[in-house]
């Protein structure tokens, strides 16, 4: 251990008195471990919202207070409050869901969630438009199938991701089991959740309710994900703490460790930037939980608690230096990390359609545009999946690209399931371009409070127009990642896409090029604040150029840099240069 380390600047972290820190720190500290006034707020009868600081605390319980922004102004004129409702995000480590859980979620969505489910970019379910009085029944419904919404949002360890490379059945099984343990380990331990949502009596605990977090939790959210090469579907470089599974002959040995990834930035704030995680070493599989504690505790103790826009782990690393952070992690771990092992990623997207696992079971990866599970017209996705869940004896895997794998299909069920897929109009991936299959959009309007422009509701239309361009240049089958968000926050991970679009104002987006095909490189802004016409003209030119002059096997993101459209970004801090 290096004992001669410099003493870092601690003027903005948890060592300071609350008054010196941001207001959210006081809110957390005064919340009595996330209880606050949530219970009384649920009873407030003159509003559909939870008054006061309730909504911020409810995020730690996986609930976002939102309103229908489409009618916000109309209701203001009608002297009605905004149409408040809640987004409920389920905690589903690794995106693994049993058929029984699926059926319960389907039922809850039909009862409380507007008859639709949203698969997220972090492999879980969101229900939108849930009314305040329906929160308890919904959360209790989840409990019946051993699910909860703990720390699905909030300044804590968010939903833990895990690659869904289901063809490697045994390895996926081991890694996803670790992901689940990691999630259970890293979430808050307060009894607030049980008391508020299950209405259980408060139980006295010896010492403290939060031995790890303390009363102020983390400075910001903290994202953990496990990747299983050669797929980088979880975008491991965008995680605060990424773990890349290293196996030898199908047996898990341990994980390469990457730290400091994060997409989020703030509009017009050049001191904020997306950053990809740095590889710092290797850890054996049995040391994962102590590693998580070590890494999260460094962020807990040194993260910026004055300015929330500067509070993610990536900034702590860039302020204190990667070497210092790594050493601090090792000090807390009580041992050095091993040197990283060899590994290779080839893609961060999903291969849709049928696949066969090493155990002889089948998997069907269903393309779910923007993760939206809904019945519409000839495509009755929600009903079809309900039918399948009733007879399926494997699992449902939610992919980080918002798709769905019906995994571990018994051979005798394959034909039945294929028939159900056809019957409900769900086998559609043949007609979609490779670009569409590699696209993602966040939810955005009308429910997201941060949205500045459309995303989920607009991307399908935009893609149809881009598909005409692709057809003119013979690129329909060329996989290109395209990701759109309605604001600069980056929920659909736009900053390492080959084509990124982030909303600035209604109908206006920033356009980015040059991201790495398997998520290994940030992109760079090419056009700022432009509308659809400019986006399409630009894509027409550059995709045409790409089709004519690309090198064999060259990806579009690599081409955009080689052809000089954008410079290569090798470090987050260069993103805004």
């Amino acid at each position, binding site marked *: 251990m290096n004992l001669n380390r410099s003493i870092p600047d601690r003027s903005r972290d948890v060592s300071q008195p609350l008054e010196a820190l941001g207001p959210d720190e006081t809110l957390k500290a005064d919340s009595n471990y996330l209880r606050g006034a949530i219970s009384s707020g649920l009873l407030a009868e*003159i509003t559909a919202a939870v008054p006061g600081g309730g909504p911020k605390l409810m995020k730690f319980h996986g609930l976002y207070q939102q309103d229908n922004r489409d009618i916000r102004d*109309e209701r203001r004129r*009608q002297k*009605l*409050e905004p149409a408040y409702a809640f987004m409920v995000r389920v905690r589903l480590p690794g995106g693994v869901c049993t058929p029984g859980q699926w059926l319960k979620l389907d039922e809850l969505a039909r009862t409380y969630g507007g008859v639709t489910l949203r698969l997220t970019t972090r492999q879980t379910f969101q229900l939108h438009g849930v009314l305040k009085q329906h929160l308890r029944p919904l959360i209790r419904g989840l409990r019946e199938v051993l699910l909860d919404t703990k720390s699905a949002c909030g300044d804590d360890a968010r939903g833990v991701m895990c690659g869904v490379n289901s063809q490697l059945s045994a390895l996926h099984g081991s890694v996803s089991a670790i992901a689940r343990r990691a999630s259970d380990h890293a979430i808050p331990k307060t009894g607030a959740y049980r008391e508020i949502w299950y209405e259980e009596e408060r139980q006295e605990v010896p010492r403290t309710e939060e031995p790890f977090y303390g009363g102020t939790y983390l400075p910001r959210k903290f994202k953990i994900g496990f990747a299983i090469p050669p797929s980088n579907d979880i975008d491991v470089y965008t995680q605060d703490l990424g773990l890349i599974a290293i196996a030898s002959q199908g047996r898990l040995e341990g994980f390469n460790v990457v730290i400091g990834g994060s997409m989020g930035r703030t509009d017009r704030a050049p001191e904020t930037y997306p950053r990809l995680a740095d590889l710092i070493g290797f850890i054996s599989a049995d040391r994962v939980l102590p590693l998580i504690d070590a890494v999260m505790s460094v962020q807990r103790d040194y993260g910026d608690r004055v300015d929330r826009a500067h509070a993610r782990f990536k900034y702590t690393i860039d302020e204190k230096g990667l070497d210092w952070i790594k050493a601090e992690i090792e000090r807390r771990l009580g041992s050095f990390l091993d040197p990283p092992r060899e590994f290779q990623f080839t893609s961060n997207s999903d291969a849709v359609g049928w696949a066969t696992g090493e155990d002889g079971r089948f998997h069907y990866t269903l393309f779910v545009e923007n993760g939206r599970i809904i019945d519409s017209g000839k495509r009755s996705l929600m009903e079809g999946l309900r039918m399948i869940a009733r007879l399926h004896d494997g699992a449902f895997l939610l992919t980080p690209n918002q798709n769905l794998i019906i995994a571990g299909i018994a051979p005798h069920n394959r034909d039945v399931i294929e028939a159900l897929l056809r019957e409900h109009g769900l086998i559609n991936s043949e007609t979609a371009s490779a670009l569409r299959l590699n696209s993602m959009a966040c939810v955005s309007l009308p429910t997201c409070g941060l949205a500045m422009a459309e995303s989920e509701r607009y991307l399908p239309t935009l893609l149809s127009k881009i598909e005409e361009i692709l057809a003119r240049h013979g690129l329909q089958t060329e996989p290109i990642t395209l990701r759109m968000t309605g604001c600069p926050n980056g929920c659909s991970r736009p900053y390492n896409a080959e084509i990124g679009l982030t909303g600035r104002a209604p109908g206006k987006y920033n356009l980015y090029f040059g991201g790495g095909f398997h998520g290994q490189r940030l992109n760079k802004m090419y056009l700022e604040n432009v509308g659809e016409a400019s986006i399409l003209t630009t894509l027409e030119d550059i995709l045409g150029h790409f089709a004519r002059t690309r090198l064999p096997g060259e990806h579009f993101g690599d081409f955009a840099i080689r052809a000089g459209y954008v410079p290569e970004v090798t470090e987050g801090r260069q993103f805004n240069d």
Partner: protein
Amino acid sequence: MNVLEAPSSDLTHEQWELVVALVRSLNQAQLLWVSEYLAGRVQTPVSGTAPSRRLTILFGSETGNGAEIAASAADSARGIGLHPTVRDLADYKLRLLMEEEDLLFITSTHGEGDPPHTAEPFFEFLEGRKAPQLSGKRFAVVALGDSTYEKFCEAGRRLDRRLEELGASRLAARVDCDVDYEKNAAAAISQILAKLGPCSPGAGEPPLLPRLEAVVPSRTIFDKRHPFPAPVVDNVALTGRGSSKETRHIELSIAGSGMTFEPGDALGVAPANNPHLVESLLASAGFSPDAGVLIDGQPVRLHEALTSKLEIVRVTRRLLRFWADQSGISELGALCEEGQAELRAALLKENHVIDLLRRFPLRDLSAQSLVDNLRPLQPRLYSIASSAAFAPGEVHLTVAVVRYPLHGEPRHGVASAFLADAAPETSVPVFVQSNPHFRLPANDVPIVMIGAGTGIAPFRAFLQEREMRGASGKNWLFFGERHFRTDFLYQTEWQAHLHSGLLTRMNVAFSREGTTKTYAQHRLLEQARDLYAWLQDGCHIYVCGDAVGLTPGVHAALRCVLQQEGGLDLHAAEEHLTSLRSSRRYQIDAY
């Protein structure tokens, strides 16, 4: 008002200034009262012989018509040398009844044959076992009603019957007046008064001074007969998307009209009929819009008559009888008989005037005979939803718009759709209708307000007024509607009032939200303990809303609160509520 321009030569400057100051401070009702008072003062010393019997005019009034008729009856009485006393049944001391001699009753009827809410204690007393013998007293009853209701003029009938039972002798047969009462009420009253005259008509000396009312230039006073064209300032739906109702907030400008009002008052709206309906009527009957008809002896274009003079939606019993006679259709004739009320009501619900024209066309129907059998288009009253102190020069209304399909076409409530469709910058004919039985108490008195649907309107005015006055009394509001999301009328305003502390508490009931229907009265019961404490602290209770759905339920709930928290038995609780009513601590505005 420019009433006060020319000082009377008979007054000193100081006296004139007092008159000016007084008149400026009065609202219309007060002005009327003062004018009568002065007229009485003037007449008393000059009348020749004192009348042998005293005349008392007692009125029960909910919308102000009764009060108006009583005032004009008093005028007429003074005109023939009588000295009547005019009293509102709302605050008439029951023990005085024994001392009366001649009584002229004027009362309206509401709901299912009920008297005005304010007159209920009097009716209970008179119809109860404690009622005194009234032999030696003489009486006459003028009953006001609406013949589209089944129990037409029922309150007046009850009074007429009961007074006779108690031994009083009838001066004249009861007079039943429909909504177009003005024509026959005046004539009937002069006939009744003629029988009372202690001296021959004209025996009274002419008054020395003109009555105050006479010096007021009539064109500056806007009233029922001379409504003010109020420009529409704002007209928005309060009910959100997906609501099963359409309730609108309408702001009118009365700036420059000189009209004044107090919280609790109503605004009369003189609507025009839906232009499409007028066209349909003309087309169905085959009449020319330019045909001339006579209304009250005045020639009018038929189109104009059907648009703004006559009620052309609902069929009255009179029109039905006319139709039965003219068509010779026995089915219609049978429905006109007594005892056919239910069948008749069912038919009239499904058949408006236009439907009679279409389903039972009359071969020889003339425009004049149709017009003769329609009743005058009546103004509608809406509780004012704003305070003049808070929004000077404006009147806000909360209007539930009635629209429904019938026989495959849209039908509309006359006034509500007229208002709902009134575009900004157009104007609506209005007048102020005083409602002295719905008044805020002193500033430091706590109030409990209970409203359902558009019954919330006067409470918006109350709170605005209390805010402007800086009133220290606590305010508790109960509100009921169907759906929280879409029907929470003025939600953000209540939230702001709660936030500022003006509104002390608010409880809401949304009847279509849960599995069981919850109404405002259920919330009262849930809050029984606190409500009782407020009552003990002297709070005033105000109820505004539907006379069928809300006010009886609230009444029962309040009785329950008194029984449960005050340990009163049923009878005592009811008596307590009655005494709250008579001490004006429990006021009802029902419709």
